[in-house]
C-alpha cells in the first residue's frame, strides 16, 4: 500500500500528462495543487484562479509574499510575464463561457454516469459550494483526482453517487492511485492500472461496473 503523500504525487504525476501546451487550467485544492510540479518544462500552461487571475506563477519564496496576491485557496502566488487580473464575475464568465480547457477536482464520490459529489456530506461536512459547481458546468474537460477508496477502504467510484451532486454527467476522466478510468457513454473504461497493483485489485475496490478493454496501459 502507498502512503498519503505517495498517493498524492502518483495521481498528480499522471494527471500532468493530460495537460497540453497552451491549455487554460484551473486546479482545485488537495491533490490538484501538486500537478504543476510534474508539468514538462517545454509546455506553457495558463493557470486560472476563481478570484480573478490568469497566468500566475508558483508560490513565492518566504518573505516575498505580496499581501494582495493569492489564489482561490488563499495561498500566495506570484505575478509572471503575461499575468492578468480581472474581477471574480469575469473569472466565472471564463469558466461558464467555455474558455477553460481543463479543471482538476477532488471528489468524495464519482459514479459510472460521470456524476461527481464533492461539496457536502449532509449533517457532517457542509463547507459550501465554492466554485465547484461552476467548474462542473463550464470546464471543457473535467478530471476527478481522488483516492480510490475512502479512509475505511470503502469504494468511492460507485454505480450511483449517494451524496448530493456537485455536477451531473460531467466527469471525463478519473485518476486514482490505482487506475486511470475514462467516462464514456457506455460506462467506465479502465485505461491504465498503476504498476504497484493489478486489475483484480482495482475491480475489488470499485463498486461501479468497469469495462475492461483488451489493451490496458500502466502508469507509475
Amino acid at each position: 500500500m502507498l502512503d498519503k503523500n505517495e498517493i498524492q504525487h502518483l495521481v498528480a504525476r499522471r494527471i500532468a500528462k493530460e495537460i497540453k501546451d497552451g491549455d487554460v487550467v484551473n486546479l482545485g485544492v488537495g491533490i490538484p495543487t501538486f500537478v504543476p510540479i510534474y508539468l514538462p518544462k517545454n509546455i506553457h500552461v495558463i493557470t486560472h484562479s476563481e478570484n480573478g487571475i490568469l497566468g500566475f506563477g508558483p508560490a513565492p519564496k518566504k518573505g516575498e509574499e505580496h499581501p494582495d496576491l493569492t489564489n482561490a485557496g488563499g495561498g500566495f502566488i506570484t505575478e509572471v510575464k503575461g499575468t492578468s487580473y480581472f474581477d471574480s464575475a469575469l473569472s466565472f464568465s471564463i469558466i461558464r463561457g467555455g474558455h477553460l480547457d481543463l479543471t482538476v477536482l477532488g471528489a468524495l464520490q464519482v459514479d459510472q454516469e460521470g456524476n461527481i459529489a464533492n461539496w457536502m456530506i449532509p449533517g457532517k461536512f457542509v463547507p459550501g459550494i465554492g466554485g465547484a459547481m461552476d467548474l462542473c458546468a463550464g470546464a471543457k474537460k473535467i478530471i476527478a483526482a481522488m483516492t480510490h477508496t475512502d479512509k475505511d477502504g470503502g469504494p468511492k467510484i460507485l454505480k450511483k453517487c449517494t451524496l448530493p451532486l456537485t455536477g451531473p454527467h460531467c466527469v471525463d476522466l478519473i485518476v486514482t492511485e490505482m487506475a486511470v478510468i475514462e467516462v464514456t457513454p457506455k460506462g467506465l473504461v479502465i485505461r491504465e492500472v498503476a504498476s504497484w497493483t493489478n486489475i483484480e485489485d482495482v475491480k475489488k475496490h470499485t463498486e461501479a461496473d468497469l469495462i475492461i478493454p483488451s489493451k490496458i496501459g500502466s502508469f507509475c
Partner: protein
Amino acid sequence: MAKPKIINANEAAKLVKDGDTLLIGSFLAIGCPQQLIDALVTTGQKNLHVVCISPDYDDYGIGKLLFHKQVTYLQTSWHGFSKASQAGFHDGSIKIEFNPQGGLLERVRAAGAGLGGILSPVGLGTPVEKERETITVDGKKWILEKPIHGDVSLIKAKKADKMGNLIYSKSARNCNPIMATAGKIVIAQVDEIVEIGEIDPEHIITPGVFIDYLVLNK
C-alpha cells in the same frame, strides 16, 4: 451625480442600520474592507444580512461580524474557514443560503445592471436546482438566478480620485467591482485618495458614479 463624500470609518459604520443587507467585497479576506468591518463591530449593528462569496475567518475579514453575532442571514458560497459561520449554520442562529460562487456574483451583477435575473446552467441536476425556478428557452433548461440588491455595499480599492474612480490591487480586486454596483449606499475603503485626473482613464476599473463615500485606510 455628486462627488463622493470623504468620511472616516466610524462615520461610515453609522450609515448601516440594524437589519440592513450588506454587499461586501473580499476573497478569503484578501481585498476586504477591514477597517469598515472593524468599525461595524464597534458600532454593533444586529440582524445584518450579509452577501459575500465567503465569510472569511473568525478573526480576520468579514467573519468578525459573524463571530460577534451581528449576522442572522448569510448568502454566500463557501464558509470553510469561518468557525462562527459553521456553528451558526449548525445551531440555526444564522440562516445560510449557499450559492454557486459564480452564480452569487451574477445575482449581484444583475441587480447592479438593472436585470431581472440571470439564466445559468450552474447547479442543474444538483440540490441547487431544487431551490430555484427553472426556465426552458428553445428547449434548453436554465436556472433562474434572481438579483440581489443591497442596502449598503462595503468595498476595498487601492486608489480613488476625488470623483470616486477606483483602481484595485492584484487579486484584491476580486468581488469588489461587482459589490460596488448594487448597493443603495456604496462605501469604498481606499489606501490613497488623489486629485481628479491623476488616474489614467484607461486604468479605471470602477467608475466613480457607483461610489457614494470614500474612507481613507488608516
